[in-house]
């Protein structure tokens, strides 16, 4: 491509940051020294460089974590190395919330003010920070630090939460949860922490209150094994299932998964076995890819983080089995950018397994070649949508693609692709352990196996819980110790911001796909967020509306403008300034919701009004409610 590079000359530091991912330039055409004997009259690198576009996101991460923002010189050099037009690269860099294309202080604390944290005092915390540190984004003393409000950080069991990221030669990240204005301020004032203590260690008993219980399946190893030790994992039965899969062969593995009736746990509930079979059948189109969606960004969801932090080898093994069954040569693990510890644990687990020959060529002496690459997201909820995730990996803006074609036909790099989320994949270990039919005997006929639920908000013991499908909402809440404090229960949010509010009268609903559908709700990603009667639900609804406005990718009209109009309308209602009657406003809200649901490209727009509409019936009640 004949690119016109328009940016500033990169500094040597900027070059080093880019080269930390791409290595030194190998020809004069991409910024190296021109060797006249080799390239006097010939151009090299075009196709080879363009094929590296998928490294754009890792390169942008390297620049961001070195300087705290992405300068035109650094971006220009990245473009030269990858043969990406600067305007397109800028479009990618300016898409993600964790990147900045304008100068920003190197130390940033992202303070979660999303719904779970809002129910735990995030509002007061942010108000305090505004007083002490100034408005979000305003630089602190010497321009070294700043703070920003953030959507859900996936640390809801320890709300309110914050995440510090410090750019520099030795960049680091630190989780603050539960956070307070004092811990945030003192953390910002630290000059540099010792690496090693930087990441908050997972406190298994806090994240998984059921830790050590015998009936656990998916969570059974968490808190009992050292997540950094492959030997520990193997001593607890690890890699037996991969051996079994290799004995059974790909077709039998898929058969077992189909027999198990396992469906995707990401929200769409598509049968996993069918997906694998569809990819496996495309023998003429190679390579096949496996993508593990660990971009868990649904507000209130943190189960995949807990699994990756507490039992990372299980995910590596499950991905290897899925790759084997569907005939995938390569796996990508896309972890959300706000999960530094999960990313580190997974990277180590992949490294260890590779060292032991459990990834790579001829795994366990079989003709199985499979490897996994990690990709970090950079702050975009939309990248949890499978096709947006493909675009993100490929180095494009995380905009969803139109379906059909479906990923099984044309997915990552246009090739047949299996895409499953973390929870779906680790179920496969249990399926092979028990056999598909035996697995299907747990739960109900329409929803088989066990399910991870993320309990947060006003619950006595928040955390990730594993229960068989069919457990009622009441039983689950009782298992978690009931509503915290002595207040009454006002509402429960099922399935996250894209889910539905249910009332305390609906507590006997069985938690199954069919049971929640019967009451007009959905399980979504397994969020169960409780709000007691002290919570101003209007504030929660406004936050949900703000979330969708902020996280819409902006590609299609219904979602790009609809999420804005929805938020504006809710503000009018909350401020008591409706245009016309309340009935007129609610009918307008319904129309906005229907257009978004019917005409948006992807699931984000299609569900952006569901939680809000499910709560609107009670709007007048919220208005009358007296705050204690």
């Amino acid at each position, binding site marked *: 491509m004949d*690119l016109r590079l328009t940016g500033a000359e990169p500094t040597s530091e900027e070059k080093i940051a880019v080269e930390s991912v791409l290595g030194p330039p190998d020809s004069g055409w991409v910024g190296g020294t021109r060797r006249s004997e080799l390239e006097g009259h010939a151009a090299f690198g075009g196709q080879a460089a363009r094929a590296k576009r998928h490294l754009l996101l890792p390169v942008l991460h390297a620049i961001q974590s070195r300087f705290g923002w992405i300068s035109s010189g650094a971006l220009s050099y990245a473009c030269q190395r990858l043969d990406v037009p600067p305007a397109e690269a800028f479009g990618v860099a300016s898409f993600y919330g964790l990147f900045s294309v304008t100068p920003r202080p190197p130390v940033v604390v992202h303070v979660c003010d999303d719904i779970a944290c809002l129910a735990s005092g995030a509002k007061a915390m942010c108000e305090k920070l505004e007083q002490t540190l100034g408005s979000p984004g305003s630089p602190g003393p010497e321009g070294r630090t700043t703070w920003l409000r953030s959507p859900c950080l996936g640390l809801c069991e320890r709300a309110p939460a914050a995440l510090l990221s410090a750019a520099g030669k030795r960049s680091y990240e630190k989780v603050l949860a539960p956070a307070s204005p004092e811990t945030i301020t003192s953390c910002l004032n630290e000059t540099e922490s010792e690496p090693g203590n930087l990441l908050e260690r997972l406190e298994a008993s806090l994240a998984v209150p059921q830790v050590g219980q015998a009936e656990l399946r998916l969570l059974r190893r968490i808190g009992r094994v050292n997540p950094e030790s492959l030997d520990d994992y193997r001593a607890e039965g690890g890699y037996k299932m991969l051996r079994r899969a290799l004995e059974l062969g790909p077709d039998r593995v898929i058969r077992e998964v189909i027999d198990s009736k396992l469906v995707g746990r990401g929200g769409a509930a598509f049968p996993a076995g069918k997906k694998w079979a569809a990819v496996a059948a495309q023998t003429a189109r190679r390579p096949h890819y496996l993508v593990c969606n660990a971009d868990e960004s649904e507000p209130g969801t943190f189960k995949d983080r807990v699994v990756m932090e507490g039992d990372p080898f299980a995910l590596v093994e499950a991905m290897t089995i899925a790759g084997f069954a569907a005939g995938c040569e390569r796996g990508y693990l896309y972890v959300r950018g706000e999960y530094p510890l999960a990313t580190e644990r997974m990277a180590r687990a992949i490294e260890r397994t590779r060292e032991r020959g459990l990834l790579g060529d001829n795994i366990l002496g079989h003709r199985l070649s499979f490897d996994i690459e990690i990709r970090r997201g950079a702050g975009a909820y939309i990248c949890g949508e499978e096709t947006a995730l493909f675009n993100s990996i490929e180095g494009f803006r995380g905009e969803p693609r139109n379906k059909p074609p479906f990923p099984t036909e044309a997915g990552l790099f246009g090739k047949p692709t299996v895409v499953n989320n973390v929870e779906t994949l680790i179920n496969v270990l249990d399926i092979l352990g028990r056999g598909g039919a035996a697995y299907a005997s747990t739960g109900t006929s329409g929803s088989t196996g066990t399910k991870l639920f993320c309990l947060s908000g006003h619950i006595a013991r928040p955390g990730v819980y594993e229960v068989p499908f069919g457990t009622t909402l009441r039983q689950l809440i009782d298992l978690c110790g009931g509503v915290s404090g002595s207040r009454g229960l006002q509402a429960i949010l099922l399935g996250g911001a894209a889910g539905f509010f249910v009332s305390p009268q609906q507590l006997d609903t069985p938690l199954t796909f069919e049971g929640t559908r019967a009451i007009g709700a959905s399980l979504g990603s397994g969020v169960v967020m409780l709000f007691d009667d002290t919570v101003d639900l209007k504030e929660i609804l406004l936050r949900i509306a703000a979330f969708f406005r902020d996280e819409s990718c902006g590609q299609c009209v219904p979602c790009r403008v609809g999420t804005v109009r929805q938020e504006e309308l809710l503000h009018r209602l909350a401020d008591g300034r409706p245009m016309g009657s309340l009935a007129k406003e609610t009918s307008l809200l319904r129309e906005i919701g229907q257009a978004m649901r019917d005409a948006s490209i992807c699931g984000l727009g299609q569900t952006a009004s569901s939680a809000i509409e499910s709560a609107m019936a009670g709007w007048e009640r919220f208005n009358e409610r007296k705050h204690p």
Partner: protein
Amino acid sequence: MSFESQPEPGSSTVSTLVPVPAGPVPIIPEPSPRQKVDITIDGQKLVVPEGTTLLEACRRLGIETPTLCFLENLTPVNVCRICVVEVEGSRVLVPACSRKAEPGMVVRTDSERVRLSRRLVLEFLASSVDVSTAPELKNYMQRYQARPERFGPAAPAAPAGGRDAALPGLHILPEGTMASTVAQPVKIDNELYVRDYSKCILCYKCVEACGVDAQNTFAIAVAGRGFDARISTEYAMPLPESACVYCGNCIGVCPTGALMFRSEYEMRRAGTWDEPKQTRTDTICPYCGVGCTLTLHVQDNTIVKATSPLEQDITRGHLCIKGRFGWQFVQNRGNLEAEEKSGLESNRDD
């Protein structure tokens, strides 16, 4: 990325008389005969060749389907969602411009659901974008009885550069009583065309025309996210510093007049732009040997802009800087007359 495996050159049944190329020989797949597909649209049965889009099928039946981001010479991006139709068995509506007909499909193009989504899309656009120079969009608004004023009066315009500086995910509390818009000052940074992004509906057409669909220049792309998504050069730098080559193909595809010839923009401002008075004359571009058809738009015996017909084989509606903008010399009649005169006089002197 990897490549399909190629046969060894010379290893197959190639006749020895034919010189064998040195590189791998690309395999050209046998063209498979196009299957026929039966579909039903609004109760009318129809047989179309495999690969036909629902939009093409609708047009064949004479069913008018509104489109904004679709253009025959660009890859469909299906982002405006105005062409959505209802397909039996589908949970959501589907975009007619890119969805291909499938056997047995039953399509409704004028159901209550379809009308509501089309109307809302128009209301969303007209309440956030200046559609004053988008006649097609205004026609659609009439057809679907769109009332964008339902969302309240328009919020004040952003200052120059304000929307370019928006940060992804940074939330600014809205003033609920006013409808947010993309209004901002017009960008005038060169002699040839202006960019009035207050009129941009983000249809992606200009990005496609600047990219692989026509020009392969990649001077502009979509930047930012959500309602702050915008067409931008890198770091929003002015066009003269960017990779822009002024082919003007972005103007050619813009459906709302957000991208406009400087000549048209200035005449509109002066109130002298009078489209009914204009004539259109096709001619061949005088510059190179390609032979692109130019349509000259002439008002008061003066060329006011140049386009190329979409259906023209050579250009498919696209031109280069010379054809698009290089017609000023035609209008320098005063100078020509003066030159001729002075030439004659000097001849007489000889």
